[in-house]
C-alpha cells in the first residue's frame, strides 16, 4: 500500500514538474496537489517513519519546486501575441492578388438564401 502511494506520488510530482515548465503550466496545480496528498498518505500509512524518508522528501521537494514555478508563472506571465510580421506580409500579398482576381470577376448583386 505505502509503496503504491509512493509510486503514485512520484509520478504525480514528475508530471507536475514537467507541466510546470510547459505553457500549460496552470494544469500543473492538479498533479502537484495529488503528489502532496500521496506523499502525506505514504507518511501516515507507513508505521516505520524512517523507512521511506528520503523518497518522500524527494516527492515533496519536486512538488514544491513545481508549485513555486507555476505560481510565479501564473502571476507574472502575460499573454502576448508573438511575431505576426510574416502573416501580415502574407495578408498584404493575398489582398493584392485577390483584388486583381476580383477585377476580372463579374460582381453581380446576387442574393443567396
Amino acid at each position, binding site marked *: 500500500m505505502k509503496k503504491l502511494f509512493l509510486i503514485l506520488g512520484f509520478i504525480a510530482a514528475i508530471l507536475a514538474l514537467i507541466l510546470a515548465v510547459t505553457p500549460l503550466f496552470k494544469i500543473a496545480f492538479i498533479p502537484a496537489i495529488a503528489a502532496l496528498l500521496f506523499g502525506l498518505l505514504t507518511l501516515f500509512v507507513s508505521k516505520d517513519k524512517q523507512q521511506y524518508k528520503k523518497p518522500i522528501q524527494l516527492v515533496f521537494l519536486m512538488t514544491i519546486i513545481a508549485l513555486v514555478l507555476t505560481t510565479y508563472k501564473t502571476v507574472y506571465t502575460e499573454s502576448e501575441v508573438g511575431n505576426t510580421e510574416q502573416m501580415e506580409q502574407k495578408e498584404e500579398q493575398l489582398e493584392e492578388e485577390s*483584388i486583381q482576381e476580383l477585377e476580372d470577376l463579374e460582381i453581380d448583386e446576387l442574393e443567396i438564401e
Partner: protein
Amino acid sequence: MKFILPLLILCSSYISNAQNNTIVAGEKLTYTASYNMSGLLNDLAQVTMETSEVKTSKSTLLKLKCTATTYSKWDNFFKIRDLYESYVSPKTLTPYLYNRDINEGGYEKFMKYTFSHKTKTVSSIMRKPRADGSIWEVKKSVKIGGSTRDLVTTLYHIRNLDIHKANVGDSQNFTVLFDNKETVVRIKLLGKETLNTALGRKECYKLAISLNNSNVLKGSNDNVIWLTADENKIPVYAKFKIAVGSGELKIKSATGLKY
C-alpha cells in the same frame, strides 16, 4: 390600395431579410481562445475578426478577415498563424472570393475559392508545400447548392439573421463549403442569458451549433455561442466541448461597431 399595402410590407420585409444591416467596414473584434481544464484556464491564442472595405475599379466590396495567432509562450511548442478571409458584397454578404492560409505547428495549407453564383460552382485551388520544398497545387471545380457559403461568411451571416423573430427551440441549417466539401451546420436558439463580459453586462442569445455527419464537435448542445441581444449581435462568448476539458472563446475588445 387595401391589397397593395400588405403586399408592400411583405416585400419590404423580404428584402430586409436578405440585406446586410449589421456588419459595416472598420469593425474589429478581438478574442482570447483558452483551454479550460477543471476550471484552470490556459490562454492559447488570440482570435480577431475584422472587416474592411476593398475597392476594385468596378465595385466596392467588404473584406471579412479572421485570424488566429498563438501567444508567444506557445510559439516554440505549437505555433499557429491562421488567416481566413472572404470578399463579400457589402449589401447582401454574398461571397465572391475566399482565402484560407493556415500554418499550424508547421503544417501549411492554402485554399482559395472563387464563387460563381450564376453557374453554382466554386473553383478551388489548394496549395501545400511538399517535404522537398516544392509546392503541390490542386485545382478543382466544385458544384455547390444555392445557399452555400464559406466559413467566414457564414459566421457573419449568422450575425445578420433576425434572431429576435425566432422562438426558443427554432433551428436553421446552413451549408458551409470547407475543404471542398459541403457541410451542414445547424444552429439552434436555446434562449436568452445575461453574461458578464469584457464589454460589460450583456443580454445574449444563446445558440447551439452542431455539425451534421461530422464528429469534430461533440455533443448536441455542448457547443454554444452567445451573441449580444442588440442590433450588433456580436459574439461575446463561445464554448466548445473537446475530448478532455473544453475550449473557450472570450471577447476582449470590440471597436467600430455599427450601433
